[in-house]
């Protein structure tokens, strides 16, 4: 019997049998792009469209890639593998799709913003008596620094103390309630914070047309405090309990333990959290539009008169364009570029601080 058995040619590697070759998905992707590109090139040469359709090539090429990959895989590897490959492709595409607006947004802002941004007067002059081109955003930058700075001064002590309460003292219902409502507060729409500041101060000062920088700081604080609480709380929770117990064992009072042991250990993380929370509120437009208003002049006094801020400057330049519209649009983009730069720098600095100064807990 055994002599009559015929053996088929040995499979070179049984583990890869019934599978697509290793780099097949990449190949299929390139092939589908090429096919669609060829199609659009033919159409273009025939004169149906004007110019080569890049967006169409990438879009339809990617769609073709999904279909082709699924079919290839289905016939070689079966339906389960085919589905897996399709989902892998879709998930990767989802990530790339999310990058497109980010790249487009940053690119446009840099390209459109640079001309006015590089004007020497942009950082040295206000918009006072400026019609058409020229002038700058100094009043807005100063206003942003003042308003956000004061908001930080208000939010950090309150937020930090609350975080300390939640981690070190809080037990029972009150602590749970505060945690819950802090989370809920992170979702308050920014414009509602502005309306709150307006409602509060117009009632206090009995002035229905009230606009001043301090109100903007209060509105931003409402938005900032929950972020500070959440990030500081996370950082304080990371401080190992052994440190606290060692301090207690030496007879150190609880409050001194917190001030001298717990806070310094968590300091880097707390600073990072504060900087990220600043970067969150520094770009807020709506509340400042409502309570700080807009002006073309310098104002160094937080407690009287309207105060321009950078986000409102961007909005205002775009919304009320003068006769020389291009100059206003240019300034709007330059303001947006400044804003993005500030936010990115804050984020970057925060990450650096977190990386350099974080306590090395691991062995």
């Amino acid at each position, binding site marked *: 019997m055994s002599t009559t058995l015929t053996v088929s040619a040995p499979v070179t590697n049984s583990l890869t049998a019934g599978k697509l070759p290793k780099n097949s998905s990449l190949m299929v992707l390139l092939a589908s792009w090429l096919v669609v590109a060829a199609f659009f090139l033919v159409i273009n040469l025939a004169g149906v469209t004007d110019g080569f359709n890049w967006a169409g090539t990438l879009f339809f090429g990617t769609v073709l890639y999904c279909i082709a990959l699924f079919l290839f895989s289905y016939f070689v590897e079966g339906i389960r593998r085919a*589905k*897996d490959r399709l*989902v892998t492709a879709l998930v*990767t595409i*989802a*990530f790339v*799709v*999310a*990058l497109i*607006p*980010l790249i487009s*947004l940053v690119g446009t*802002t840099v390209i*459109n913003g640079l001309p006015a941004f590089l004007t020497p007067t942009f950082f040295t002059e206000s918009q006072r008596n400026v019609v058409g081109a020229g002038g700058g955003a100094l009043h807005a930058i100063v206003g942003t620094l003042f308003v956000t700075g004061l908001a930080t001064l208000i939010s950090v*002590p309150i*937020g930090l*103390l*609350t975080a300390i*309460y939640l981690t070190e003292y809080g037990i029972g219902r009150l602590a749970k*309630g*505060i945690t819950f*409502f802090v*989370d*809920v*507060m*992170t*979702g*308050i*729409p*920014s*414009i*509602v914070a502005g*309306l*709150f500041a*307006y409602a*509060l101060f117009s*009632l206090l000062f009995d002035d*229905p047309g009230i606009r001043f920088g301090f109100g903007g700081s209060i509105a931003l604080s409402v938005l900032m*405090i929950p972020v500070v609480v959440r990030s500081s709380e996370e950082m304080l929770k990371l401080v190992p309990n052994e440190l606290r117990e060692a301090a207690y064992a030496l007879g150190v*009072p*609880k*409050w001194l333990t917190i*001030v001298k042991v717990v806070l310094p250990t968590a300091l880097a993380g707390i600073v990072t959290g504060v900087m990220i929370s600043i*970067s969150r509120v*520094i*770009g*807020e*437009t*709506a509340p400042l*539009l*409502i309570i700080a208003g*807009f002006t073309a002049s310098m104002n160094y006094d937080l407690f009287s008169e309207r105060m321009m801020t950078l*986000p409102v400057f961007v*909005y205002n330049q775009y919304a009320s364009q003068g006769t020389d519209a291009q100059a206003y649009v240019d300034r709007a*983009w330059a303001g947006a570029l400044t*804003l*993005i730069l500030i*936010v*990115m720098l804050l*984020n970057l600095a925060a990450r650096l601080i977190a990386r350099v100064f974080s306590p090395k807990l691991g062995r």
Partner: protein
Amino acid sequence: MTTAVDRIAIKAKERPGDRIFSTATLVAGGLILGVLAAVAAFLLIQSIPAFVAEPDDFKGDFTNFWSYVAPLAFGTLWSAFLALLMAIPVAIGIALFISHYAPRKLAAGLGYIIDLLAAVPSVVFGLWGIGVLAPMLQPFYANLVEWFGWFPLFAGPVSGTGRTIFTVAIVLAVMVLPIITAICREIFLQTPVLYEEASLALGATRWEMITMAVLPFGRAGIISAAMLGLGRALGETMAVAMVLSPSPQILFQLLTSQNPTTIAANIALNFPEAHGVGVNILLATGLMLFVITLIVNMIARLIINRRKAFSGAN
């Protein structure tokens, strides 16, 4: 018996410093609850004149406050709904990509790139939406209306500027994307590794492992992430105010130049020029927005908190 013994805590001597410090932290914590209450209270006080306002006080012909706020509330919910419809699948895809598909070393960096989207100020999104996205989409809209105009949502006439509620929904989707992604990513990473390894060991493909282990585990997290994104989309102001060309009525058409506007955008556009009862009316619409977002956020947080307590992850 043992519990009775445990109850007797050793009381440390309370120094004045201790008392001052603990009181200060308690006051700060209480202040936060106070602020939340104050937001509701002051908005309510200032809104009362709006509820009894005469028809003449409203911009446009509305008989009372509720008929004024209804189209705005509709626009707010409609645009947020459209935005979530686009954002949720993409966000889940990104979260899966970062948590389960991307190379381990790259994952953190890729997550940071998506977080960068959250750092872009909303006014810049508005500028981008009106300056780049709307003109880019307009020819596409024209084709859509031409070919699919029989479908009620895509009915014409097409907007000549591209500043439609659909464009707004795309901008909003981009803005809520990082929020939903961040939470989904966290939840997906919490999936017990044993479940994942068990399904892989049984011969499941990666996608089967995700549908069997990761997604069922993360379902509550995905829902609450979506609701937090909804809260953000409902309250987003500047992007909508800048991109949309508004008309206060209830309309489902996505691509025409007649679009329902949102509460927040309506406030931002009209507040600087408002006076008298007009201010109170805008504040009252703000109160409505506050109530809507508060409810959405509370439900989302309740789901997340329940999940935290019962999940096997911690």
